[in-house]
């Protein structure tokens, strides 16, 4: 575990000390959180505004986790790959899975801090979350699902995309596409049939819908994602993406010439 802890410490410090990384990971969701209500909730009835802000806050938490897993993680891996760190590590007595686990845990800590920050800003900004303890715990489970899927996608990007900038931009593009096409910014009912299917199938979109459903209610989602079939599929697909990402990372980033 000492090797895993060393990787966690190193990766986390790198995240914290990279000002651009902090800015883009934390600032974009906070910016959306503050600006979107000013643009779209002006005409909304006063009694639902706090719930709308609550829904937006939760979506921004998911957005932040997606950015950390899908953009920051592959960016950091690509940067290390570019400067020959994997060559050095391949000559050392450390197993790829331990190194990968360290990186994943560092992303978890980093995105948890960001998520708490977004939640706090949202609550200060007037967001209302109507939930009990059980709903909150269930929501945490869906947050975890989002995290696993995001990290799986991030590791897959890292396995194939070379260059820090290319890997980060690929991750950002996937995050934005997921956000805009998966019913996270536009209500589910106004999505075309094809994208409604996408929103139900994609584990991150589905987990986001489940969290908002649990903490804000069905009106703020547009459908009930909490049926056995969809929950099982979301969990399974998320874990599958994570395992595939982990395997691809271990195989391609650590590949011997």
């Amino acid at each position, binding site marked *: 575990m*000492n090797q895993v802890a060393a990787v966690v410490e190193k990766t986390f*410090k790198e995240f914290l000390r990279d000002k651009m990384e902090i800015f883009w990971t934390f600032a974009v969701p906070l910016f959306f959180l503050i600006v979107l209500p000013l643009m779209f909730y002006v005409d909304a009835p006063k009694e639902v505004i706090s719930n709308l802000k609550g829904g937006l806050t939760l979506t921004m938490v998911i957005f932040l986790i997606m950015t950390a897993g899908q953009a920051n993680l592959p960016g950091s891996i690509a940067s290390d790959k570019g400067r020959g760190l994997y060559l050095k590590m*391949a*000559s*050392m007595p450390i197993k790829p899975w331990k190194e990968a686990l360290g990186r994943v845990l560092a992303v978890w800590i980093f995105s948890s801090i960001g998520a708490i920050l977004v939640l706090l800003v949202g609550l200060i900004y007037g967001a209302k979350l109507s939930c009990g303890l059980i709903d909150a715990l269930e929501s945490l489970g869906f947050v975890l699902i989002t995290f696993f899927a995001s990290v799986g996608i991030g590791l897959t990007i890292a396995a194939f995309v070379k260059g820090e900038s290319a890997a980060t931009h690929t991750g950002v593009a996937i995050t934005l596409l997921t956000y805009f096409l998966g019913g996270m910014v536009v209500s589910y009912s106004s999505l075309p049939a094809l994208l409604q299917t996408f929103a139900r199938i994609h584990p991150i979109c589905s987990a986001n819908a489940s969290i908002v459903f649990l903490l804000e209610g069905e009106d703020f989602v547009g459908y009930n994602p909490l049926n056995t079939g969809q929950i099982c599929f979301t969990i399974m697909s998320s874990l599958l993406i994570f395992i595939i990402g982990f395997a691809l990372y271990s195989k391609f980033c650590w590949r*011997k010439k």
Partner: protein
Amino acid sequence: MMYKRKTKLCATELVPPLYIANSIFLRKRDGKRMNAITIHNLQKNYGDDEVLKGVNLKIEEREFYALMGPNGSGKTTLASIIACTSLHSSGTVEIYGHNVVEEAKKVKKLIGYVPQENFSSLHLTGKENAIYFTRLFGFSKDEAKKIARDMLDKMGLFEDAEKRVSNYSGGMRKRLEVATALLPGVKILILDEPTTGLDPSARKNFLGLIKRVNEKGATVFFVTHIGEDAEIASRVGFMDKGKIVMDDEPERLRKRSGLKNVVNIETSIKNDRVCNVLKQFSDDDKILETEKGFKIYCQKPEEITPSIVKSLDKIGCKVTRIEAMPPSIEDVFFKLTEKPLRR
């Protein structure tokens, strides 16, 4: 049996820092040093491209072996195979008797590899980098702190240990990276072109440090295409087209080349005409282009120097500097392989 047991004791488990690498334990009974690196008929192909063509090499423990060759000769590939980061196509590589493929875990505890690239993290301090790599090697956090402190001290980085690597010079960064390879238990230091990009003063300091590390007990495998770097080695190997074509002590290589003197000529212009004129003065028609002019090889430079200046003046080329000097390893390489190390 006894010999094997001694090897195992020293080679695998936690032992004091490299500097105390106790070669007494690793010596064979007859007093000869044992082989730190043994390479037999090593071949490496990338598709149809044959990069290594049957390399054979034995490096004794505590030797400072410099491997020289032009770009693309296969030096880095050979270093990466020894460092367990590349797989070979056929042949065998053993580190203290352990096969690099079958016993990679044991081998990795015996080698410290510094690849060409600067792998240290710019966002971390020198100390944090050193601790990170020490922990990756398997030491606990507390042990790593002590070891890192010791390593940084020995590499002359103690004062700058708390500075971020982004504030380090090229030479400091390279020394830090060598420090991350000098972990307790490591017996072989593999350095791949470590002086590339360093200014002359930083290079000199760096080479001095590596020499001291070698004198304190480490075996050094040093890959370079810079002749001056190889001068400090106890043995130099010349690599060309995937083969080690010659391999000996620097002085003996000089003798074998038959070179006595080199005339270094710096000229105002460099073109084929100048080259053709100078060729007439070279003992064997060989001429090496340098950054500021040319080098020719001759037995009695004092006799030809005035004629060189005169002949070049006739074709409108001024000699800005001309001097006779003893041949460098780079000259020996050129003489023996007919190829310049640097283009």
